């Protein structure tokens, strides 16, 4: 076997690869055809609303994958991942605001909210934001650098467990307060919305939506494979050792700081990418994405699906968010009861999540 074939068989078995192939077929062929080529009256037609909703949920799935990498495999629970997601979203949102051009309400070169605040020119944060490549760079760099700096300080002084969780929560809370201010230069309470174009394409057109959907799906599958590749490597085994017995692995001569810092930064960057894909599909980004509640919800997606199983992260994000979409429409007042109960029941009775449950059943059967 060549090295590539070896890697392929290391990641997933035959069944796994078939499942991924099937997912790819659905994401890249079936849904686009059913949305674009099938007439709206046909029973098999997939509405653009559904495409966008699934795209949104897949963005959440990417975040859940990123969370699973640090929580499930390195034992670091972050309650601030919504911050990295929102930062990626804001970086992309800035560019989308600039692409509106003069079609805003005030027909100005500046984004509407700046005209409203009577600003005469773009603040420094917006430098070069009309260039897509710059926006793409920010999407990766801002969450990455912030996570690197924060993680370096935290992991160096061996902050972990609950303490780490609480200070990440404080971090995202502080950032939310900061972004709520108009003076910060990102639209205050309202954030960014009313996007018109992305790379010259109309963001509301079904074709653009389908492309965004497919790109999100490709990213999700890519992140899944990347994560699988990481956790099955030696690096991944050291991470698991850190999760299970950090002192012991340190006495074995590993510098855990490097391992934790790399996976933590990677996780933040993945969240940033998810945020950047999320904003053009949902059409709005505002500071409430940074609220501590949102970040805690990410943890429950992973817990529902199953910690330490990458597929579980996708399953969990899918189940919880699909349920949320149904509940908030059909009986909005019961959604929080359901979500709260989910938190309690999953932690009490389902420590390995849905995927863990399925696995143990399969094992029990044969």
């Amino acid at each position: 076997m060549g090295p590539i074939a070896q890697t392929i068989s290391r990641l997933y078995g035959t069944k796994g690869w078939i499942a991924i192939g099937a997912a790819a077929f659905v994401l890249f062929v079936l849904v686009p055809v059913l949305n674009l080529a099938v007439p709206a009256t046909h029973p098999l037609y997939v509405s653009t609303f559904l495409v966008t909703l699934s795209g949104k949920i897949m963005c959440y799935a990417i975040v859940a994958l990123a969370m699973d990498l640090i929580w499930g495999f390195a034992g670091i629970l972050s309650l601030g991942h919504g911050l990295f997601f929102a930062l990626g979203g804001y970086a992309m949102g800035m560019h989308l605001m600039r692409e509106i051009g003069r079609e805003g309400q005030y027909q100005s070169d500046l984004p509407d909210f700046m005209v409203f605040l009577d600003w005469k020119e773009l603040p420094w944060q917006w430098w070069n934001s009309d260039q897509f490549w710059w926006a793409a760079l920010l999407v990766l760099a801002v969450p990455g650098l912030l996570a690197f700096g924060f993680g370096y300080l935290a992991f160096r002084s061996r902050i972990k467990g609950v303490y780490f969780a609480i200070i990440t929560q404080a971090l995202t809370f502080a950032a939310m307060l900061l972004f709520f201010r108009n003076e910060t230069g990102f639209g205050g309470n309202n954030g960014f919305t009313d996007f018109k174009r992305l790379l010259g394409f109309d963001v509301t057109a079904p074709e653009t939506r389908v492309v965004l959907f497919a790109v999100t799906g490709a990213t999700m599958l890519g992140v899944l494979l990347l994560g699988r590749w990481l956790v099955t490597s030696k690096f991944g085994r050291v991470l698991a050792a850190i999760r299970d017995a950090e002192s012991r692995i340190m006495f074995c001569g590993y510098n855990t700081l490097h391992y934790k810092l790399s996976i933590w930064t990677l996780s933040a960057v993945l969240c940033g990418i998810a945020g950047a894909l999320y904003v053009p599909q949902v059409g709005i980004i505002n500071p409430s994405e940074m609220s501590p509640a949102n970040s805690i919800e990410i943890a429950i997606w992973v817990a529902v699906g199953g910690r330490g199983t990458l597929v579980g992260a996708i399953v969990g994000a899918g189940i919880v968010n699909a349920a949320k979409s149904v509940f908030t429409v059909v009986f909005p007042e019961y959604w929080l009861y359901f979500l709260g109960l989910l938190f309690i029941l999953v932690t009490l009775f389902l420590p390995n999540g849905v995927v863990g449950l399925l696995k143990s059943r399969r094992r029990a059967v044969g």
Partner: protein
Amino acid sequence: MAAALDAALVGKLAFGTNNEKIAAIRMLVAQGEVAAVPLLTALAEGELQTAGERVLIVRDEIATDAVTGAAVTPLPEEREDVIANNRVRGAIANAVAGLRLLSPQRELRFEAAQKLLRGIKPGMLPLVKGALTKETDAEIKSILERVAATIQVKSGDKNSRIEAIRTLADSHSAGTPALLESILQKRKDGTFVEPDAEIRRAVTESLDAVQKRLAWGERAGLLFAGVSLGSILLLAALGLAITYGLMGVINLAHGELIMIGAYATYVVQNLFRAHAPGAFDAYLLAAVPAAFAASALVGMALERSVIRFLYGRPLETLLATWGISLMLIQGVRTFFGAQNVQVENPSWMSGGIELVANVVLPWNRIVIIGFAALVVIAIGLLLARTRLGLFVRGVTQNRPMASCVGVPTARVDTLAFGLGSGVAGLAGCALSQIGNVGPDLGQAYIVDSFMVVVFGGVGQLIGTVVAALSLGFVNKILEAWSGAVIAKIAVLMFIVLFIQKRPQGLFALKGRAVEA
């Protein structure tokens, strides 16, 4: 409609020349005729008409007699409009603003006083002085005092001006320095706006005195605000210091236990209002144990049903208690509605002590500071002197050993958790007296409370006290300097960095801590 107006004045308003009209308006103001406001507005808006000798206010084809206020039916056929020119309209605008000062509605008076402050007219002095003698609201009174002082300081003969300037030295109003400084201004060519050197000297002296006093007042106010915020943080964090600090349980539903305490206070208040309105002022005394009991019971139920299965799994506890908090929030929304509810201060808690100059210390804040001190002392005694406290400390320090010597650890856990939750309820009771009570009340305090406990160090009450007070101070000082949001962010960032340097917090338990 109020009592009849002076018919001669109304006649002058309707039939007189412009000068006579303005004189009549001034007379009405000088007499403080609040009832003239509709008449004057009608004149300004062209709704005043005359039919022979009678003066009518005609609005939407319905006429009322301007003097008596009685309805006039049928509408007389022959009517003439009373014309008001710009000068008359200006006089009316001023007069209406002045007369509103005497209105029984607080908002109208407040608005009118502020309007006066923006456009001060010397002729208003008698009216303002008259209003001052009747005014009871402290805020409006201070505005009116400024108006009166401004008029007196800037006009009249030299001696009365100097006297007015001297009296301003004792002024309690925050606007006084600006007023005095305006007299000292120079023109572009370097000469003073105020030519009289004696007056200028009097102004400088008064200004010095006022500024010195205001500076002290501000410092004292800042100190008080810091202690006040600190006491609130302390109350909010104290329960957490027990459940997290002593027991190691990460209870993200802590904020909701605070909220339950606030709602318990609300329920007690409503019960008193409905069944014992005479004893309404005492409701708070009954609300304190009720809030404690409500939150303690909820807390104990949570401990028995969920949390005890998760001891030793802090991250899972965190998620489960978050779920509990969501359900509690939604539960309160279902029972009490999503809107904020009204909790009224008992009368003995409203108002405040005027310390110096512009600084008023509200009673409700003072009571809360005292209450927080009492709660801390009670908890300290409970932990240090009682059998339960001994058990709690024993279980905290060495659970298996405590169990071996016969401490019922499971029961101690439940009771300690109930105690921490009950203290959260007390915090809710206190918070209901100074802020809004709504389902989201607890969310606002959860991050802050954790910061206090983590900053103070886990396992010792003194750490929590010091941390809460110092964070309160730092927050208020930064707030005065950079604004509330930036102050809050700065404090959060400070704590985040502080924990990196000293993860055990300000006060750490001494001993051989082992990695958990």
